[in-house]
């Protein structure tokens, strides 16, 4: 089910501005990888190149290779739509579809893609909501609009929506930055469960969170404002937080700069 990601020599541009430069890394299946680094160093940009969402931005352009189990996402003839069905995404701000009910939000991916059987739909929605730890809170009001939920519930709804289409990889861009500690814990627990089935990549500004949930941690940095962001190092989370091999990583993690 889960797939390996193999990035080599990847650079991304906004128009003529180079946002990330020459990034290479391997992400193993069924692991959680955390991206950390200062604001503006290109974590979101890099994440979005992994499911070809970067090119949705006007002027967005990518160079380099991203292999998903040996298949290049940027190879000739690859359809970005089918890439995004394999590599799902959860955004920083919860964004449920405002015209749809809770049920329809979770079913949206299947319905909009048209590949489901009617009698399966109820089961899939229930399974996904349970998977996102939301089922008990919403099972009595599945027909109410998704925008009527609290922020944390909305974010879990978005996670349910993303896992309902059974992607191989799940990308999360600061999924907890707008949430209270309890919802954050709920989502962290959820990540621990989801990792049995998916390959997970998560961007976070919260060091404790990276240390708690991830197996591997990648540290990004940029030389100066306006310069492209670079991958400084990627290693086992334990090592990054106890004994990183690059001084800049240690400075960033311990809060020393300059």
């Amino acid at each position, binding site marked *: 089910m889960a797939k390996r990601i193999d990035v080599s020599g990847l650079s991304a541009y906004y128009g003529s501005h180079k946002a990330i430069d020459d990034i290479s890394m391997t992400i193993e299946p069924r692991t959680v990888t955390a991206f950390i680094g200062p604001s503006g160093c290109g974590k979101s940009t890099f994440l979005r190149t992994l499911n070809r969402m970067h090119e949705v931005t006007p002027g967005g352009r990518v160079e380099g290779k991203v292999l998903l189990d040996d298949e290049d996402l940027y190879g000739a003839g690859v359809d970005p739509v089918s890439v995004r069905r394999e590599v799902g995404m959860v955004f920083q*701000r919860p964004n449920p*579809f*405002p015209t749809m009910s809770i049920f329809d939000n979770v079913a949206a991916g299947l319905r909009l893609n048209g590949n489901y059987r009617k009698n399966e739909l109820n089961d899939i929605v229930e399974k996904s909501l349970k998977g996102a730890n939301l089922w008990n809170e919403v099972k009595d009001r599945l027909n109410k609009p998704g925008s009527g939920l609290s922020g944390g519930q909305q974010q879990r709804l978005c996670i349910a929506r993303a896992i309902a289409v059974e992607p191989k990889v799940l990308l999360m861009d600061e999924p907890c930055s707008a949430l209270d500690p309890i919802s954050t814990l709920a989502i962290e627990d959820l990540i621990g469960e989801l990792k049995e089935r998916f390959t997970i990549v998560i961007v976070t500004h919260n060091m404790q969170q990276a240390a708690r949930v991830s197996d591997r941690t990648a540290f990004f940095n940029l030389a100066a404002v306006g310069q492209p962001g670079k991958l400084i190092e990627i290693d086992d989370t334990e090592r990054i937080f106890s004994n990183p091999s690059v001084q800049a990583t240690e400075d960033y993690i311990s809060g020393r700069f300059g």
Partner: protein
Amino acid sequence: MSTTLTSKHRSTLRGGHLPKWSPLAIIAGSVAAGLGISAAAGLHSSIQWALIAAVVFVVATYGIAAKVEGRRQAKDRIATSLIWVAFLLAVIPLASLVWETVKRGVKVFDVYFLTHSMGVVADTEPGGGIYHAIIGTLEQVGLASLIAVPIGVLTAIYLVEYGKGKLAKAITFFVDVMTGIPSIVAGLFILSFWILILDMGYSGFAGSLALSILMMPVVVRSTEEMLKLVPNELREASLALGVPKWRTILKVVLPTSIGGITTGVMLAVARITGETAPMLLLVWGTNFINNNPFEGPQASLPLYIYQQYANSSGANAAYDRAWAAALALIAFVMILNLVARGIARWKAPSQH
């Protein structure tokens, strides 16, 4: 010690205050002043005394408020009163127009009037009605909408969702130009193209063509604005689920903005319903019921009003009918606006 201090010094947080009723008192005073000055100077026009009263009101408000409350509060009051004056200036013509139309229109406005044509009534005689004109207007406006709404909405979708580069710029430019086309020019264009070159003859449909030219840019503009209001996050959420772009537009973007788009379309319909000039050139007008918009002259409400005025050499019966038809036209547009508001409220993405 401290009590004597506070009582001696004025508080910096709590200044003097005019009582709540003071604006009303100033209004009453300035109206009295306006009437008094007019009477003394022998002015008779109500516009003159109203203007004097308005000026007195603004000056008095500033003066009194500056004395009691200070300069900043006085400026605040002046801004408030200027807005009220502007509001009244805007509402008075509108209200008097509606009042006049209703007053003159109700004389012959009844079920008979709505369900009969002018087929057997001479223009100078009493009786008759606007049934044929209502049919004509409904068909012409309906056909114009059938042409203009799909083209307009699709154009807006192209501009917002796909358009970049030269083509989109060119389309935007032409839409801007079209917005400024006077209705008589649209009528002349269809006259020369449809009737003179293609030799098609006068019909309701010819009028619809001209109306659709007038309607299209309005639909494009309003739909564009509504589509731009849909947050990009929703598009990205859908795309990230592996939904193709066209389905994202169809199933996520359009449903989110459908309320606003409908409102825009209704307002565009309301705008073209009152167009007279192209009708004069293309639909020709008739006193008889013609249910077929593709063949032969038809009537329409604005055209009917004009013809009742123009062809009747001042007969009172015709004037009454013209006012009643005007009332029907205003009522129709009003109903469209209400329906548009209802749809917008009903379709707005809800919180509960």
